[in-house]
């Protein structure tokens, strides 16, 4: 940029004028009055409730504008999937703290001696399957204290837990209504990158638990209180003499992230991610870590071994991570202890019988180096392998997985690339590309598997890639598998497409958004660029400039990858350039 350009921009920037003070004053009164009138209206409609069950009435219903969106898988670990150093560093930051926290460190919470899980609020007239907030303590001292909060999405639909929803609230029960006494700001230590307004969506899928937040409660008078966020709430007492002292021991360095951090008493699968400075370090750890992890429980001021569990190479969910299936355990604070090449690492998780069990996992292939499963997929109440149209049939439970392992590749591909793609409940769950045995996560960020394949092999078209996947499908398929994977080719606008689509769609590449309509882009958990096993997908041509208008800037790391077209929250029109492949559901 030459000096004239600079001066020109400065001249344009200076080309403005001050508003008329009278106009400002009138507008301020108008805007503030508008909200005041609305608030008064809302208060008049609060129903009287009894002291005994304050939470039964006053849990705020979700605003109709807080729309449900097409399901996405857990965003945090998906971010790990495409993470580089910055992500690894982020994971070192540990459990997010709310903005009201004090200097007290996060410490394990002993939930063994009583029921510390705050039961889900069951407001009158609301289904018991509403999202709720699990709290690690039922009582907090009037002098203050800390507790852990985890959003549990017990509903049948994904829950928007984006920071764009704003802070939560800290409220006191007055005897007749919940009175706001503070703000529970977003703990966003789990999210990384420079995010411009508005925030990208982060969806908590149905049945999943969110990231644990450490919330420091400031000194308060005794009474009943609650924390609310994302339309969910959890209640607790503040008393002069809390009967439970939950803080036993001190926090230890956490170098292993466990997801989910809150499990049901029946146990279930968890994903493990070692904090690392590089992909190579992660790879080394995964390859050299001991195949068995110890499970320890916090009790009587110390960690005590309670069991062991084998580790699984978590290829589908996190190429540089691991997975494990945890056995049923009573309520409490636990940790997994792994012995890696540089010593022992561990990560903490919590168990509450108030949380619904997660579905079991099914190993599906063998990692060639240490013969551990390279990936697995969750199966729910209706376990079946599906493809094509059937993928998006069920809101939960249906799943399919397609793997190309090294020994299954033909000569032209052998040694070059391994592609693993999973689709869970109609959504691409994760994928990984190996080249010569080295995870190419960084390449995934830039290219995605299809482009990577095409560029490296120079001959793999979409149809060929799909054919390869079909030919190497290692799993028994139901009749649904006979449905054509790509029966149609669709070209048109997103708006038109959404009118035809039921379920999720994954957009690959750049999307040009027209700012005047009905389309919204949601952050995808997978960043996948191709769904060869037949997930609904929309392929668009790469676009030279950031495709989002200023209201939809996303962190640079997310500029390439999958984005999910969903209902609109902020209504912006969309149009796609390029061909759109949409299998099965048009």
């Amino acid at each position, binding site marked *: 940029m030459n000096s*004239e350009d600079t*001066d*020109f*921009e*400065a*001249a*344009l*920037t*200076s*080309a*403005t*004028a*001050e*508003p*008329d003070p009278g*106009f*400002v004053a009138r*507008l*301020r009164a*108008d*805007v*503030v*009055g*508008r*909200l*005041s009138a*609305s*608030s008064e209206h809302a208060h008049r409609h609060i129903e009287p409730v009894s002291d005994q069950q304050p939470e039964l009435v006053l849990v705020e219903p979700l*605003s109709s*504008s*807080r729309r449900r969106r097409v399901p996405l898988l857990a965003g945090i670990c998906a971010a790990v999937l495409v993470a580089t150093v910055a992500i690894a560093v982020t994971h070192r930051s540990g459990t997010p703290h709310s*903005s*009201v926290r004090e200097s007290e460190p996060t410490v394990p919470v002993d939930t063994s001696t009583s029921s510390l899980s705050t039961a889900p609020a069951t407001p009158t007239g609301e289904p018991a399957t509403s999202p709720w907030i699990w709290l690690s303590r039922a009582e907090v001292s009037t002098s203050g204290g800390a507790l852990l909060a985890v959003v549990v999405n017990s509903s049948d639909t994904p829950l928007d837990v984006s*920071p764009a929803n*704003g*802070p939560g609230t*800290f409220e006191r029960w007055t005897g007749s209504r919940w009175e706001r*006494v*503070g*703000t529970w*700001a*977003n703990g*966003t230590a789990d999210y990384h990158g420079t*995010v*411009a*307004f508005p*925030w990208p969506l982060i969806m908590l899928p149905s049945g999943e638990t969110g990231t644990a937040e450490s919330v420091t409660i*400031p000194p*308060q008078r005794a009474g009943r209180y609650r924390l609310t966020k994302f339309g969910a709430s959890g209640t607790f007492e503040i008393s002069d003499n809390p009967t439970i002292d939950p803080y036993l021991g001190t926090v230890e360095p956490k170098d292993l992230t466990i997801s989910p951090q809150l499990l049901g008493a029946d146990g279930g699968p968890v994903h493990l991610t070692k904090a690392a400075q590089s992909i190579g370090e992660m790879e080394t750890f995964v390859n050299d870590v001991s195949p068995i992890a110890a499970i320890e429980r916090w009790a009587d001021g110390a960690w005590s071994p309670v069991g062991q569990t084998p580790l699984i190479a978590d290829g589908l969910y996190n190429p540089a991570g691991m997975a494990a299936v945890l056995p049923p355990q009573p309520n409490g604070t636990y940790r997994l202890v792994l012995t890696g090449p540089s010593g022992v690492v561990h990560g903490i998780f919590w168990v509450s019988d108030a949380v619904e069990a997660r579905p079991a996992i099914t190993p599906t292939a063998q990692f060639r180096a240490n013969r551990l499963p390279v990936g697995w997929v969750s199966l729910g109440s209706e376990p079946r392998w599906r493809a094509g149209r059937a993928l998006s049939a069920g809101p939960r439970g249906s799943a399919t997985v397609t793997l190309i392992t090294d020994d299954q590749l033909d000569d032209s591909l052998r040694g070059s690339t391994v592609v693993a793609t999973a689709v869970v409940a109609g959504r691409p769950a994760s994928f990984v590309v190996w080249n010569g045995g080295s995870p190419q996560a960084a390449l995934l960020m830039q290219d995605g598997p299809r482009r990577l394949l095409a560029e490296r092999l120079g001959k793999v078209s979409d149809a060929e890639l799909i054919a390869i996947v079909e030919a190497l499908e290692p799993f028994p398929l139901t009749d649904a598998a006979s449905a054509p994977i790509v029966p149609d080719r669709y070209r048109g606008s997103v708006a038109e497409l959404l009118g035809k689509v039921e379920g999720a769609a994954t957009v690959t590449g750049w999307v*040009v*958004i*027209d*700012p*005047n309509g009905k389309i919204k882009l949601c952050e995808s958990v997978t960043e996948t660029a191709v769904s060869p096993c037949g997930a609904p997908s929309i392929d668009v041509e790469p676009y030279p*400039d*950031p*495709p989002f*208008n*200023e*209201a939809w800037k996303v962190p640079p790391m997310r500029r390439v990858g999958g984005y999910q077209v969903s209902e609109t929250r902020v209504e912006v029109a969309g149009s796609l350039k390029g061909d759109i492949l949409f299998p099965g559901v048009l």
Partner: protein
Amino acid sequence: VHIEPTTQHGFDVTTPESLGRFFDVAVHPVFHSVMRLTGGDRSLSEDLTQDAFRDLADAVATGRESVVDVGWVIAVARRRYIDTVRRSARESSKLRLVASDDAAPEATDWSSVGGDRVLEELGRLPTDQRVALIRRHVDGAAVATIASELGRSIEAIESLMARGRRTLRAASARKDHE
């Protein structure tokens, strides 16, 4: 309890008081931005500013927003204006005149041109040229983004910006002679 009026990522505007505090912070930058876009049309700028803040109040009242920043209001106001630009462009596309820029100099010393004068000249520019210039050179929007917003091709936006800049140069040169 310490109630934070602002958060790391914006202002908590969930109460009338906090909304008022946010208004005090935001109204001037919003108005400045809109004035540039409208080329100094004060009446239109006041309308757009008012509409944007009313949108904010409604969004807060219905629970759609609780934490916002100044950019939120600017984006709403800008979108409203660009909507009108697009509509008027469709209605008057056949009536558009090609601006004469024969007298435009090669370069201009913009550092000597005051903001008031630039604003005055911006007001004389065709709307689409002005919007393209402001979005590109003040807001830093990508050409492709502007093209999408205005419903034009990238080439058309580049042409608009070039013509607008030449027109401003020519106007500046004429003023200098006067």
